[in-house]
C-alpha cells in the first residue's frame, strides 16, 4: 500500500500516480529533503485522512487553531478578511494580526493572505507574500484563490494553523 502524501489516499502496491489526486507518487518519493530544517517543516504537515465540507454559509463562523497558541480564534469573515501582522510604521493592521503568535520570526508578511467569502463557500488567496501561503502542504500561486474546507491546514511562512467551520 502506498499512502499519498498529498491527499492521504491509499494506493495499490505498484501505483506510480495517485489514483485520487493525480500526484506523481514516484517523483514525490525521489524528492529527497536536503536540510534538517526543511525536514522538520515537512514533518509538521500532517496528512489528513478525511475531507471536510466546502460549504460555508452566511451563518457559519471560522475557528482558527494556531499552532502552539493556547486559545483558538473565532472569526466571522466578511467578503474579504485580511491576515498578516501589524506594522507600526505604515500603520497597517490586518483583520487578523498574527504578531502575538510570532509572526515576524515565522516569516508572515504584513499583508499575507485573505479569506474571501463567496456564495456558500470560503476561499483563501495568497496576496503575493514573501514566504508563501500553503494549503495542506501545497504552495498557492499568488492572487489565485483556492476553496477552503473544514479541517484544512494553512501555513503562512512557517506559521501553521488549522481552519474549522462552525
Amino acid at each position, binding site marked *: 500500500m502506498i499512502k499519498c502524501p498529498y491527499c492521504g489516499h491509499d494506493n495499490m*502496491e*505498484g501505483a*506510480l500516480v*495517485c489514483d485520487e489526486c*493525480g500526484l*506523481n507518487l514516484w517523483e514525490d518519493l525521489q524528492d529527497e529533503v536536503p536540510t534538517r530544517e526543511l525536514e522538520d517543516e515537512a514533518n509538521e504537515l500532517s496528512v489528513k485522512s478525511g475531507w471536510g465540507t466546502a460549504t460555508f454559509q452566511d451563518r457559519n463562523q471560522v475557528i482558527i487553531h494556531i499552532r502552539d497558541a493556547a486559545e483558538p480564534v473565532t472569526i466571522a469573515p466578511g467578503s474579504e478578511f485580511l491576515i498578516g501582522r501589524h506594522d507600526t510604521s505604515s500603520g497597517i493592521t490586518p483583520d487578523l494580526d498574527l504578531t502575538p503568535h510570532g509572526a515576524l520570526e515565522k516569516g508572515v508578511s504584513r499583508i499575507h493572505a485573505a479569506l474571501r467569502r463567496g*456564495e456558500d*463557500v470560503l476561499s483563501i488567496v495568497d496576496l503575493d507574500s514573501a514566504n508563501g501561503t500553503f494549503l495542506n502542504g501545497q504552495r498557492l500561486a499568488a492572487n*489565485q*484563490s483556492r476553496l477552503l474546507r473544514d479541517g484544512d491546514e494553512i501555513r503562512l511562512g512557517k506559521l501553521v494553523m488549522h481552519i474549522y467551520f462552525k
Partner: protein
Amino acid sequence: MSFVDYYAILGIDPAASRDDLRQAYRLAARRFHPDVNKATGSSALFRDINKAYEVLNDPASRAEYDHLWQDYAITTPSLNVDIIYSRKCLRPISEPQLLYVLVKIQPLLEMSMTTDAPLNLCLVVDRSTSMKGARIQHVKSAVHRIIDDSAAEDYLSVVAFSDNADVLIPAQHPVDPRSIKSVISIMRADGATAILAGLQAGLAQIKRNIQPKYVNHIVLITDGRTYGDEGDCLTLADEARDLGIGISAMGIGEDWNDRFLDALASRTGGASAYINSAAAVSRFLQERVRSLATAYAERTELIVGPVPGANIKAIIRTSPDPMSMESDLQPIPLGSLDGKLGTKLLVQFHLNTGETPDGNFYVGRIDVSGQVLGSVHREERIIKDLVVEITNQPVEEDPPPELLDALSRLALYRLQDRAREAVEEGDFVEATRKLEFLATRLFESGEKNLGQAALHEAQRVAQTQRFSEEGIKQLKYGTRAFLPVLGDRND
C-alpha cells in the same frame, strides 16, 4: 484470409512433438478457456488457440499447414510491437498490485518510407441553422483545401446534412476540382441536425469504392446534437468498422455531445476533436486527412487477454488522439496506424500474485493485427506474452520515464473525467474536490490557463452544481491534448 502463425499462438516450436502440442494446449486452456476466464479479450484469444490446436493436432492438416508456414517464416514482419512494463519484478503479497504496460505499435523502420496511401474519403458536413455565418464559411474553405490537396488516385465525396442529407459530391477522383468546389460554395445553412441521415449517405458513398489498399474513412463535422438517433448512429459505426471503414468526428463550438462523438469515433478506431473556433476547422481537417494519408496500416486491432489472476482496469490509447478504449468490446479497433507516430496504448492491470515468491507470473497476452498498406500490402499479426517476475529480493527499479510521463498526463484527464461523473451522480463536494486537485496539478505543470479553467469550474460546480458546457469541453480536450508523449510530433 490472412495467414495465422499457430505455433506462435500456442507458444511452441514448429518442431514440437504432439505431446508438446497437447501440453501447450492444456496450458493455454487453463489460462484462456471461457470456463475459467470471463474476460472478453481472453475468449477472443481462445478461439484462435482452439483453431490452432485443431489444425496442428491432425497430422495431415499439420503437414499441409507446415508447408504454408515455411513461406511465412521467411518473410520479415512489417509491424513491430514493443512492450514496456512499469516494473518487471513484483513482490509476493496477498493484496492486489498494479501493473502498467505500455504497448507501442510501430512500423518497422526500413518500411516506414512508403508513399502516401490512397484515400477513399467522405466528408459529412453539418449545414444546420446553427452553422450559419462564419462557421459554414470556414467549413467551406476547409473542404476546398481538402479538394485541392487530394491526389489523383483518391476518391472523394461530400455529403451535407440538416433535416436530411444531400450528396453534394458523389464519390469520384478529383479530376475537376473547380467544378466540385463550386458545388460546395453554394451550400446554405438551414434546418436541424440529423447526423444519422448524413452518416448513412456518407457510408453509401464510401461503399462504392471500398478497397483494402485504400484508407476508407468518413470525417463528420458538426456543431450540434442529433436527436433520438444516437443509438442508430453507433450501430452504423459498428457496421462501418466491420467493413474496414473508419469514422472521425469534429465538433465545433460548445453545443455538441462530446460523449456521443467520442463513442462514434472510438468504435471504428477513429479520432475525435474539439474545435473551439470556426477558424481552426481547416487546420484540424487538414491534419486529420494528412494523418490518414500517411497511414502505414489500416484496420489495426488489439486484443488484451488477461489470465484469471489478472484484471484489466483500463485501456487508454495515449497516442495519437488519446482516448479511453472499452476493454469489454474486444478486439479493440485502433483504426489506421500512422506511419510516423505509430500507436501507443496504456493498459492498467490489477494482479493477484499471491504470496508465493520466486518465479514468473504470466499476466496475459497482447495480440495486435492490421493490414499493412503500400508495397508490402498484407495482413500482419503480432503476439506478445506478458510475463513479470515475482521475487522477495529487493529490486532497484526505476519506472521507464516514457511510461511515467504518460501516466502523469493521463492522471489529469482522469481527474476531469471523474469530476464530471461526480457531478452527474450529484456529489458536488467530490466534484469540486477533483477539480481542485486538477487545478493544482495543472498549475504545477505550468498550465495556467487550463488551471484557471479548472478552478473556475470548481467554483461554478460548488455554487450552481453544474458545469459550463464550454468549461467541460475545454478541460476535457485540453487535458487530452496533453496526453501524447512530448516530442512525438517531431521525431
